[in-house]
């Protein structure tokens, strides 16, 4: 009688241990898969500030957007909205729209010049050097962008912003 109870007890412990292992593997596997997806395929980010109104944050102070990380930087086109490393603050990011690529010219807006534009524009135009791109916020009156800090190297771009998930 007793040995039957013991055998049953052992089986229960074995079963629980197996379940523990299965759960651990699932957790590890899911974590790796999530890490893989968010570092290489797509991820989300919170956009704050008003530099991209009305596209983002028209009625709110922040929104969560979907970002795809798979496009190579050579395929970035004008009018794409990109997430890039901030050229002025190493650990920060910026969300801006690409308005000109290398070899193209940027028309200078007389009403909203920035430090860089004032310094380097010639006859109302600026050229974008090879390997760089020109980015501007949609809200021209309230955006720190290439007009301030100049064109940014393509290598700083992490991915393209697809759309707003919620704000």
């Amino acid at each position, binding site marked *: 009688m007793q040995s039957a109870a013991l055998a049953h007890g052992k089986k229960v412990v074995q079963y629980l241990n197996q379940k523990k292992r299965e759960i651990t593997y699932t957790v590890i596997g899911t974590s790796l898969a999530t890490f893989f997806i968010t570092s290489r395929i797509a991820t989300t980010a919170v956009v704050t500030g008003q530099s991209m109104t009305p596209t983002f944050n028209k009625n709110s102070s922040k929104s969560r957007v979907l970002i795809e990380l798979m496009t190579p930087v050579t395929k970035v086109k004008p009018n794409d909205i990109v997430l890039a490393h901030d050229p002025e603050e*190493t650990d920060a990011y910026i969300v801006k729209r690409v308005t000109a690529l290398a070899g193209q010219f940027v028309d200078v807006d007389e009403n909203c010049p920035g430090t860089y534009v004032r310094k380097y524009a010639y006859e109302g135009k600026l050229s974008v050097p090879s*390997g760089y791109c020109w980015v501007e916020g949609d809200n021209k009156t309230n955006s720190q962008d290439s007009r301030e800090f100049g064109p940014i190297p393509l*290598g700083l771009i992490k991915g393209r912003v697809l759309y707003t998930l919620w704000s």
Partner: protein
Amino acid sequence: MWKTRVTRFLECSKWFVGGGVLSILFYDNVGYVHTVRGKSMAPTLNPGPTRALLREQVWLSKLPYKPRVGDIVVFRSPKHGSKLAMKRVAAIGGETIVPSKVMKSGGGPVTMKPGYVWVEADNRDTAGRDSNEYGQLHEKMIIGKVTWLLWPWTRIQDLRKTQLPFQTQ
């Protein structure tokens, strides 16, 4: 009949998919073997001919770290967004250096913006496709640090102990 074949296939393929994902994660976050192209880091790297099979191989570490002076780093080239370049860090953010090209022509010192580094080629004879040409490099363009020379076996060495072969005070 085909149902069991499909389930068997899925059972086996999970190992391939899992292995693939782990390899890519390793490649992105731990490191990989990288080929040295060009002679801009001679004589430290590629002192000999640089035809395909004779190029040297190094270990490129992608573990998170902050650039230090003397590190050999691989970074996205500011001139061609999709290409990678390899140079040595000569100064980091906050420091002031006299870049080697400027030293030759007698110009003034350059102060690094925080978060930017100055990279120089070890090979003084090359046209200097380094910061002398494109200015300060944003830290986030750096994708990894070269730690070991792995091939050819006769030259295996810890590259972290090597230094700039010239002065920048």
